[in-house]
C-alpha cells in the first residue's frame, strides 16, 4: 500500500513537537532559563498558528485535505479546534510564568510537557482514524497526569495526580476496548470508512457495545456525569495554572474527537436498521448524560467553599451545555446544518476556555505559594482594594454565567438556538433544562462577586503585584470575552470556512462488498 505520506498536512503538529523537544534540551544545557524557555515555547506556538492558517488557506489546493491514507484530515472541525488549542496553551504558558517562578518548578520540563500535551490535542482534532485519536489522547493524558502531580512534595498534588492517573487510564482502557470492538464490527479503524460500513456491519451487537465503551472513555475525558467523580478532586489538587489548562484544553480536545467519532462515524443512514438503532442509542444516552451533567454540575457547585472546586463543578456544567450542541449536531438533517452546529460547539469551547483561563489566572495570583488561598473566604472584601483583579474576575464570572455582551452569552445562544430550532421535542427539552440550569448557576457565580465586593475583610490583605505576563493574560482575556461576545460573526464564519473539497459530509451509504468470509477464515 502506498504510504501516502505528506508532512505539510501535519505541519502544526510537527512544529509544536519540535519546539517541545527544543525547550526540553535547552533547559538541560542552560539551566535556570525560565523566561527564555517560556518565550521559545510561545514562539513555537506562534509558528504553529501560522502553519495552521497556511493550511486553512491552501488545504484542498497545494496541500491535500486528507493524507496518510485518510488518517489525517483538514476540515473545519480540525481547524477551528486546533486554533483554540494553540491559544489555550499560549495563554496557559503566560499564566504559568508567575507560578513557575514562585514554586521553583523546573521550567524546561514543564513547558515541554505543555507543548507535548498540545501535540496530543492537535492530533485528537486532526485524526480521522481511531489509531491517531488514541495516540493523541494518550499523548495528552500522559503529559497531563505528570503536570497534575508536578509539585512532588505537596500531598494534594500527589493525590490529584494519582487519582487522575488511575481513573484516567481505567477510562482509556474502556475507550480502547470500544475501539477494538468497533474495529471488529466494521473491519476498519478509519472513521470515514466506519461511517460507511456501519450500514452492513458484520457484528451489529459488537458495534453497539463498542460504541457504549467509547462513550465511557470519552465521557470521562470531557468530565460528564456519571464519569465526573475525578474532576473536583483533581482540579482542586492540581497546581492552579494546570487546572485552568485541564478545564480548557483537554476537555475541548476530547469534544473534538468525541464529535468526530460519534457524529461523523456513527451517522443515521436512512433505511438501515443497524445504523438507526446505533444512532438512536447514542443520541438517547448523550441526552440523558447532558441533562445529568448540567443539573449535577450546577447544583453541586452551589455548596462549594473552595473557588477551584466551584470552578471544577462549573466546568462540568459547561460540558453539559456543550453536549446539547453535540446532540443537536448528531440529529442535524443536512451536512450544512451539522457543520454550523459543530462550529458553534467549537466556538463555545473557545469562549469558555478564554473566560476560564482568565479566571484561573486571577486564582493563581491570589492563591500565592503552595495554593494556600483558594477558599471563598480568601476573596472577602478584596473588591475595592484590588479593583483590577476583582473587576476582571467579575467580568469572567458574568461571562461564565452568560450575561449579554460577553462571550459566554453568545456562545450559549449559538449552541442552543439551532438545537431549539431543529424542532425535535428532545432537543427542545434539553434547551429548556439548559436554560433553567443557567439560572441556577447565577447563584454561585454571583456569590463570588458578592463575596469580593460586599463582605468585610477580617484578615489582612496585601494587594498582590501583577507581573507583566499575567497582566497580558488579563488584558487578552477581557478583550477576548468582549470581542467574542460582540463580534462573534467573524469568528463563526472563520470556523465554518473549511476547505471546500472535504466538507464534514457523511458519506452516502454505498453498497460495499462484504468481507470474504472464506478468505478470512483461513
Amino acid at each position, binding site marked *: 500500500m502506498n504510504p501516502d505520506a505528506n508532512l505539510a498536512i501535519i505541519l502544526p503538529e510537527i512544529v509544536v513537537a519540535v519546539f517541545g523537544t527544543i525547550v526540553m534540551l535547552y533547559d538541560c544545557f542552560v539551566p535556570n532559563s525560565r523566561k527564555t524557555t517560556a518565550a521559545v515555547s510561545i514562539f513555537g506556538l506562534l509558528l504553529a498558528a501560522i502553519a495552521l492558517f497556511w493550511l486553512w488557506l491552501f488545504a484542498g489546493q497545494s496541500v491535500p485535505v486528507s493524507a496518510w491514507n485518510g488518517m489525517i484530515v483538514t476540515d473545519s472541525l480540525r481547524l477551528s479546534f486546533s486554533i483554540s488549542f494553540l491559544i489555550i496553551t499560549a495563554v496557559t504558558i503566560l499564566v504559568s510564568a508567575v507560578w513557575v517562578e514562585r514554586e521553583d518548578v523546573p521550567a524546561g520540563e514543564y513547558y515541554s510537557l505543555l507543548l507535548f500535551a498540545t501535540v496530543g490535542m492537535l492530533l485528537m482534532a486532526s485524526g480521522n482514524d481511531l489509531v491517531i485519536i*488514541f495516540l493523541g489522547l494518550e499523548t495528552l493524558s500522559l503529559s497531563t497526569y*505528570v503536570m497534575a502531580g508536578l509539585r512532588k512534595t505537596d*500531598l494534594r498534588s500527589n493525590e490529584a495526580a494519582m487519582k487522575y492517573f488511575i481513573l484516567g487510564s481505567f477510562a482509556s482502557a474502556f475507550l480502547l476496548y470500544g475501539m477494538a470492538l468497533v474495529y471488529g464490527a466494521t473491519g476498519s479503524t478509519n472513521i470515514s470508512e466506519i461511517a460507511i460500513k456501519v450500514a452492513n456491519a458484520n457484528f451489529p451487537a459488537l458495534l453497539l457495545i463498542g460504541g457504549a465503551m467509547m462513550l465511557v472513555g470519552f465521557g470521562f475525558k470531557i468530565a460528564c456525569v456519571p464519569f465526573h467523580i475525578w474532576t473536583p478532586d483533581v482540579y482542586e489538587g492540581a497546581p492552579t495554572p494546570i487546572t485552568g489548562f485541564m478545564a480548557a484544553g483537554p476537555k475541548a480536545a476530547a469534544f473534538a474527537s468525541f464529535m468526530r467519532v460519534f457524529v461523523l462515524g456513527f451517522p443515521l443512514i436512512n433505511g438501515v436498521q443497524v445504523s438507526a438503532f446505533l444512532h438512536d442509542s447514542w443520541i438517547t444516552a448523550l441526552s440523558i448524560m447532558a441533562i445529568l451533567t448540567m443539573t449535577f454540575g450546577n447544583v453541586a457547585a452551589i455548596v462549594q467553599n473552595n473557588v477551584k472546586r466551584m470552578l471544577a463543578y462549573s466546568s462540568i456544567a459547561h460540558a453539559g451545555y456543550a453536549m446539547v450542541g453535540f446532540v443537536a449536531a448528531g440529529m442535524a438533517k443536512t451536512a450544512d446544518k451539522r457543520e454550523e452546529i459543530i462550529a458553534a460547539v467549537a466556538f463555545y469551547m473557545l469562549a469558555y476556555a478564554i473566560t476560564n483561563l482568565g479566571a484561573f489566572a486571577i486564582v493563581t495570583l491570589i492563591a500565592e505559594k503552595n495554593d494556600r488561598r483558594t477558599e471563598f473566604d480568601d476573596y472577602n472584601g478584596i473588591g475595592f482594594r484590588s479593583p483590577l483583579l476583582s473587576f476582571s474576575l467579575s467580568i469572567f464570572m458574568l461571562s461564565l454565567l452568560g450575561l449579554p455582551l460577553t462571550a459566554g452569552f453568545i456562545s450559549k445562544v449559538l449552541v442552543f438556538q439551532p438545537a431549539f430550532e431543529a424542532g425535535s421535542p428532545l432537543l427542545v427539552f434539553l434547551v429548556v433544562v439548559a436554560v433553567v440550569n443557567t439560572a441556577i448557576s447565577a447563584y454561585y457565580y454571583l456569590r463570588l462577586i458578592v463575596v469580593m465586593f460586599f463582605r468585610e475583610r477580617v484578615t489582612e490583605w496585601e494587594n498582590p503585584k501583577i507581573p507583566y505576563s499575567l497582566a497580558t493574560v488579563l488584558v487578552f482575556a477581557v478583550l477576548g470575552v468582549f470581542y467574542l461576545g460582540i463580534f462573534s460573526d467573524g469568528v463563526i464564519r472563520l470556523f465554518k470556512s473549511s476547505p471546500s473539497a472535504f466538507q464534514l459530509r457523511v458519506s452516502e451509504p454505498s453498497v460495499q462488498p462484504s468481507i470474504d468470509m472464506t478468505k478470512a477464515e483461513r
Partner: protein
Amino acid sequence: MEPTLASYLALSGILFTIGAVGVIFKRNAIGMFMCIELMLNAVNITFVGFSRFYNDATGQLFVFMVMSVAAAEAAIGLGIIIAFFRNRISVDVDDASILKN
C-alpha cells in the same frame, strides 16, 4: 483444534472483566495499575483476533501502538505512585483522602 474468533473474544472479554473488577475492588495502587495493564492486554487480544479474522494488518498495528503507550503509561504511573509513596509511606488509595467535598 484451531482457535476461532469466538475463543479470542471470550478470552479477551474474561481478562478485561477480571482487570476491571480488580481496579474497582483493589485498594493497592500498584495492584490497580497491574489490573489496568491486564485490561490493555485483553484489548490487544481482541485486536489480534479480529486482525486474523479479517486478514488485515491494521489490528496488529494498533497493538504495537497500545504496547508502546502502555510502556509509557507504566513509566509515568510508577513515577506518580512513587511520589505518593514518598510523602505517605503507603500506596493504599484509601489514604488518598485529603481532597473531599
